[in-house]
């Protein structure tokens, strides 16, 4: 193996290193807070309190987390196939079209529990369809999926603006959005769960799609680690050559992995469109597709890591909103910086601290780091 890094014990690999990376990301974010003349410790206290302090805030945190679980899973599935699906934003946007069309068609005839499964299918289909073209081009014509999915984000944005302004907007309305869905197109809220646990909630958009997100996380785990298809996806991701030798069709695997990824990203739309706003409007994704990248990197592409990472980002989104009230110098854009720093330190620089941690392990107990670590240090 030509990996330049030697093995560490599993708990250090999956626990310690991500935590160190995360800590550094927050440390740098703290420096930015200091740079704008605020106290980073006070900011952290306000942020955590704003995210978890009251039932209301917890409900909002979980609402945001729902979207990030979907988009995080979407990025992760593609990662396992060593594909970087940066197009979650566009796939979720187009997925929203699927949700919207289903709701507009059936909300007056069917109850929500019949519309919901149809909307899931709609979201997944539309999201997957938007991922299909880049996947097909990657598999058949070798065009780089990163570039094509970026381009498809922009194309999706133009397409959706066009459809909302020219096709879906009710006659006479000003705002570029569909009509409000009737009761059949509204998901029930889950706030009563939190209220049953003793929290009080005035109104929050926390809704049923959270459970769907958890179910999706479980199903992704089953798919990736417990099925033949998942095995083939991981094999292609680990070594395309080995996969080819084993008789795995590369074209098929790339396209299937991207379809699953796109479907998951598309299902994110259920949360804001059917669960909260109850209409399809411009820019409802608000960056959740990109947050998925940070979530997947932090969660190391494993559902068990993605769910807590999504909740952490949910906390950042909700707590960040509160922070913006308390500290005039800090707006919600602080989250974007933190997101970038997490992607930088947990993603691009994930190996930065590895040599020093290995050295530490080697000096503490030579056996735990193994002989390879010595060679790894030499390079």
């Amino acid at each position, binding site marked *: 193996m030509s990996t330049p890094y030697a093995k560490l014990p599993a708990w250090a690999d999956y626990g310690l290193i991500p935590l160190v990376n995360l800590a550094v990301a927050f440390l740098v974010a703290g420096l930015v807070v200091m740079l704008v003349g605020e106290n980073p410790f006070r900011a952290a206290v306000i942020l955590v309190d704003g995210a978890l302090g009251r039932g209301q805030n917890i409900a909002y945190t979980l609402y945001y987390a729902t979207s990030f679980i979907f988009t995080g899973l979407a990025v992760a599935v593609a990662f396992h196939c060593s594909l970087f699906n940066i197009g979650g934003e566009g796939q979720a946007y187009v997925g929203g079209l699927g949700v919207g069309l289903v709701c507009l068609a059936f909300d007056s005839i069917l109850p929500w529990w019949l519309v919901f499964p149809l909307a899931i299918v709609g979201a997944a289909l539309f999201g997957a369809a938007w991922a299909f073209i880049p996947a097909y081009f990657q598999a058949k014509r070798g065009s780089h999926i990163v570039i094509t999915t970026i381009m498809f984000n922009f194309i999706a944005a*133009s397409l959706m603006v066009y459809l909302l302004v020219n096709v879906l907007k009710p006659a006479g309305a000003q705002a570029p959005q569909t009509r409000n869905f009737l009761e059949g197109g509204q998901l029930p809220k889950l706030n009563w769960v939190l209220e049953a646990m003793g929290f009080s909630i005035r109104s929050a958009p926390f809704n049923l799609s959270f459970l769907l997100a958890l179910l999706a996380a479980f199903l992704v785990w089953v798919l990736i680690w417990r099925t033949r298809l998942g095995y083939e996806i991981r094999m292609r991701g680990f070594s395309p050559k080995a996969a080819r030798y084993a008789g795995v069709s590369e074209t098929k695997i790339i396209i299937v992995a991207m379809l699953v990824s796109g479907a998951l990203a598309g299902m994110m739309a259920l949360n804001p469109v059917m669960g909260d706003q109850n209409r399809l409007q411009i820019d409802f994704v608000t960056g959740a597709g990109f947050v998925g990248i940070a979530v997947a990197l932090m969660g190391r592409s494993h559902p068990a890591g993605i769910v807590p990472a999504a909740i952490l980002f949910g906390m950042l989104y909700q707590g960040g909103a509160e922070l913006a009230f308390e500290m005039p110098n800090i707006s919600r854009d602080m989250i974007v910086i933190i997101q970038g720093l997490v992607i930088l330190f947990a993603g691009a620089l994930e190996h930065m601290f590895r040599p020093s941690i290995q050295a530490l392990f080697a000096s503490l107990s030579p056996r735990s780091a193994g002989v390879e670590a010595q060679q790894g240090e030499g390079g």
Partner: protein
Amino acid sequence: MDFFHSLILVLDSTVRLSIPLLLAALAGLYSERSGVFDIGLEGKMLAGAFAAGAAAAVTGSAWAGLGAAMLISIFLALVHGFASITHRGNQIVSGVAINFIAAGSTIILGQAWFRQGGRTPSLPGEARFSSIDLPFAEAVRDVPILGEVYSELISGHSLLTYAAFLLVPFTWWVLFRTRFGLRLRAVGENPAAVDTAGISVSWLRYRAVICTGVLTGMAGTYLSLAQNAGFVKDMTAGRGFIALAALIFAKWRPVPVMFACLLFGFLDAFAIRIQGTPLPLIGQVPVQFMQALPYILTVVLLAGFIGKAVPPRAGGVPYVKER
């Protein structure tokens, strides 16, 4: 004559709209030719635009703005280099990170320092790169056709515009006629060969990303000091990605990069011009379609339907010395 006049106007705004694309695409050219993919052009350009706006507002000098923009863009380019060259991280991930860091911090710092909702203060003329009238521009204005072309289209742009066009042959010369350029291209195709020749792969790639930083800084400066009078939040608005598209469209070659940027700039200018007026034969073209056209064209090109865009062979792959 009327048609000719509107044509000149559209071409004039084509030039204005394609300059930031051209500078950013040339920036990407250096990095990508050396084997370091850079989807962080957008972020570096945005940070550069902010630094230029902020420094020009504080010092009152456009040149100080340009310097600050270059410094901050070089810094971000070095972060990208540190992650992808020294630590062999994923170059795409690193580029995405830089885009987010730039998008967030320009707004936060702008609001904290200037308190104008993320803008920098509006700049007076001397703190900007304002348009330069070339000699005789006024005198020849009345000469039919040529006079108008000279005075409207060629004259009356900012210094950065002329610099950007000069940078096209310069980049060609650097890449294809100097030793540095030869090595830069070699390291993007086959770093092991360069390493065997006793040349440092890392140092070459670091120099390439520094060039990227300088040029994205200029691109940002153009946005906030030439095209506008100050920084507005999120003012790059995806131009970094269109530049990337242009770079691919031009198959990573300097002169075609210029034409690709002019084409994308023209589409933009044309879309603004025809807004609301139906075209003969086609009828009303949705603005959104015109906006999406550069991206659609790039996807079509990448899929190999119009020629084939082959990226530098070692692009995106961190170099691990044999051990």
